[in-house]
């Protein structure tokens, strides 16, 4: 069946591209490395569309490639499965990946690790696709890790830079914590059901005791929190901005971080069996959404703002999952993938224009220099803020509506607050960078310094945008603008027309949300709209019109401001409570290993040598001494003989 072949073909294509670029990149593809990668992902995207079409007619199908593990009654085949949820994820992953590949042709131009970049991108795409296509938990876990690995490789892509290498490590280690919980969850699952296959587990889910299911779900959620940067495992995502911007767009906005959301959605049967777990998910999601939005209010690094925004929006998605709005959460995942990727790529375009600077306080009035970037960026921002009729509005409404309808009023309130904050911080950035009263030209005299151009080849804190050859603030090349335009179009059109079809499509595999007509539902919707617009207006007034002075506000509430600016000191807390004791422990262990273990081993050797040296002194070379020993031996033998 052609649909079966498509299932393994889709991930195989980027994997092949990875092999080509990884093994032959240095010699063969060098500066043409993007061709195999683009071709592979493009083809994969077409296949994904075919799968989508097939999924509208048939609900679910599987393909077993071969038996992977078979021990007694524990049987784990390499099984790929597809259903509407998978189809949607496939389209998102291949689509955004393709656009990011295209964008990278321009963005990473001239970088010394060009072929390595595309190899890693392909590897990541392959891993993510396999993650989504997995038919059992073990396979999921394997590619969960693979995605984490790819993320590490890409974050630390400019590994010569210490901050980048550290960020990669941090991402991997924090993920590991989450993965540990995930693994425990899977083990608990195996212990209680004896299988890792999705179908079988979900069938058995309602029969398991409540406490067990809750425990399993909570552990699985720990894994999701790690991968999707929820509190308290969110700390790696802002640091991950050290990686190239296309990486941030692909991995930390659209795909990898959504793996957690996907996983919870996939396990809806388990979570539905445990209201406690769902409550935890919703609360953590909301908490994260609010906290991240609060931090984003004061950040000055454009990419960091976007990073916290991602964390916040992921929180929204988990809120959606937790209150039972399964379709809504996935829909938000869908729209978010587009507009957040757009915002990140747009940030990259901005940085390219002005020579690598990310600081929004050092920019202004760029609109007239880079119109395309500006327009697409504004579209993305409107979508993020949830303004009608952009896509973000519809997806956010699904979640907020479900929260309200499910009587989770407190969560609803906080979520609305976060939405307002979202609108504010994103437009703060927009006005500061593209419009506003400062003049970027005054801050960045053209031509952009040749020093920035030296970033090519390796380091460059993302001062990859700079091309010293053409001076001044300039628009990006078409390879970078085209994806922006496409994504902007999706951010506009993906909302209203798709909302209904989406719900129907996914409704076949995801349970429906509570929908009863609750009094005040309409008012709640209106409230959300008003708050979003309000946030936008405040930002406009402050940063465009200058009527409110942000500095004075910051000075009035210094402690709140400090909390926000310093990310609530969570990193510092971790450093003191976890990192430093662990390092001390490691140092102690090192001392133990060197001193005692090595000491024992060396001591044995030294002792042997010492004894050997001592005994060697018997070999004097003098015949008389040897005779003496013979005589002693004689006396000894005689003595023994006499004893008997």
């Amino acid at each position, binding site marked *: 069946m052609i649909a079966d072949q498509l299932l393994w073909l889709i991930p195989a294509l980027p994997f092949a591209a990875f092999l080509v670029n990884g093994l032959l990149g240095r010699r063969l593809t060098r500066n043409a490395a993007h061709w195999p990668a683009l071709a592979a992902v493009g083809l994969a995207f077409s296949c994904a569309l075919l799968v989508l079409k097939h999924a509208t007619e048939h609900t679910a199908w599987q393909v077993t490639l071969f038996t992977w593990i078979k021990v007694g009654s524990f049987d784990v085949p390499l099984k790929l499965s597809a259903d509407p949820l998978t189809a949607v994820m496939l389209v998102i992953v291949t689509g955004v990946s393709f656009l990011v590949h295209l964008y990278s042709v321009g963005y990473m131009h001239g970088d010394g690790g060009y072929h390595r970049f595309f190899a890693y991108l392909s590897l990541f795409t392959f891993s993510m696709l396999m993650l989504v296509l997995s038919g059992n938990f073990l396979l999921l876990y394997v590619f969960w890790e693979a995605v984490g690995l790819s993320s590490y490789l890409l974050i630390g892509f400019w590994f010569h830079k210490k901050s980048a290498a550290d960020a990669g490590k941090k991402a991997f280690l924090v993920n590991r914590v989450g993965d540990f919980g995930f693994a425990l969850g899977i083990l608990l699952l195996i212990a209680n059901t004896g299988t890792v296959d999705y179908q079988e587990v979900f069938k058995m889910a309602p029969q398991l005791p409540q406490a067990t299911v809750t425990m399993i779900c909570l552990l699985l959620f720990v894994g999701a929190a790690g991968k999707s940067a929820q509190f308290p495992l969110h700390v790696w995502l802002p640091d991950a901005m050290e990686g190239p911007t296309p990486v941030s767009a692909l991995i930390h906005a659209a795909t990898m971080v959504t793996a957690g959301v996907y996983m919870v959605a996939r396990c809806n049967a388990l979570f539905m069996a445990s209201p406690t777990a769902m409550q935890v998910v919703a609360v953590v999601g909301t908490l994260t959404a609010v906290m991240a939005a609060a931090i984003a209010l004061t950040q000055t690094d454009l990419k960091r703002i976007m990073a916290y925004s991602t964390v916040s929006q992921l929180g929204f998605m988990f809120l959606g999952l937790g209150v039972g709005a399964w379709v809504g959460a996935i829909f938000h995942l869908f729209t978010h993938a587009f507009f957040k990727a757009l915002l990140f790529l747009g940030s990259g375009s901005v940085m390219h224009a002005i020579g690598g600077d990310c600081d929004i306080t050092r920019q202004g009035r760029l609109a007239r220099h880079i119109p395309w970037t500006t327009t697409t960026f504004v579209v993305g921002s409107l979508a993020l803020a949830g303004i009608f009729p952009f896509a973000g509005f519809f997806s956010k409404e699904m979640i907020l509506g479900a929260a309200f309808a499910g009587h989770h009023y407190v969560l609803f309130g906080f979520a609305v607050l976060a939405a307002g904050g979202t609108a504010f911080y994103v437009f703060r950035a927009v006005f500061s960078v593209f419009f506003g009263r400062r003049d970027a030209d005054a801050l960045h005299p053209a031509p952009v310094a040749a020093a920035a151009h030296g970033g090519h080849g390796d380091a460059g804190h993302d001062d990859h945008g700079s091309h010293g050859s053409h001076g001044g603030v300039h628009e990006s090349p078409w390879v970078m603008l085209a994806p922006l335009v496409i994504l902007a179009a999706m951010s506009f059109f993906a909302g209203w027309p798709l909302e209904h079809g989406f719900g129907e499509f996914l409704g076949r595999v995801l349970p429906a949300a509570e929908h009863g007509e609750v009094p005040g539902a309409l008012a709640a919707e209106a409230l959300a709209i008003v708050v979003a617009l309000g946030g936008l207006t405040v930002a406009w007034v402050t940063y465009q019109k200058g009527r409110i002075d942000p500095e004075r506000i910051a000075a009035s509430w210094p402690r709140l401001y400090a909390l926000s600016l310093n990310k609530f000191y969570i990193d510092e807390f971790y450093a003191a409570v976890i990192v430093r004791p662990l390092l001390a422990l490691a140092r102690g262990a090192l001392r133990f290993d060197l001193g005692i273990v090595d000491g024992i081993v060396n001591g044995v050797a030294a002792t042997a040598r010492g004894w050997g040296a001592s005994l060697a002194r018997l070999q004097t070379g003098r015949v008389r001494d040897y005779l*003496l020993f013979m*005589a002693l031996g004689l*006396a000894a033998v*005689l*003595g023994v003989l*006499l004893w008997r």
Partner: protein
Amino acid sequence: MGQIVFALLALVAVASALVVVAARRVVASALALVLCFLAVAGLFILQGAEFLGAVQIMLYAGSIVVLFVFVVMLANLRGEERGDWNGPRAFGAALLGGVVLAQLVAVFARTRGWLAAPSNGLAPGEGHIQVLGKVLFRDYLLPFEILSVILLAALFGLIVIGRRK
């Protein structure tokens, strides 16, 4: 009567042995060695092994000690050795010697008791030479011939080694 002779010979043997071992001058040691050999020869004869006693005198006392003296002369030694008997080494060796002596005596004293046997144990009527003659060329012919070969080999050997290059 035999006991007195034995005692005398034994005394001479032991005394000369002590001189061999302890004498300062090598030539003195050599001469004392001759005396010892002679005493031992006498003891052989006392026990009825006349031929052996004669051989002892001829070979040992006669040729071998002469060889020793030749070597000493050729080496042109002053012949004075100092300090061998000082120090812990000598003391230890003497102690060791005493221990071995005690052990050796104990070996035969304990196993069989104090042995008293006829000193003249050969078949009466037969002299030593007759016995040896019969035995050497009958039962022990092969070892006898091999001994000749050994002597020949030794001859070659010492000519080769002793050559002046």
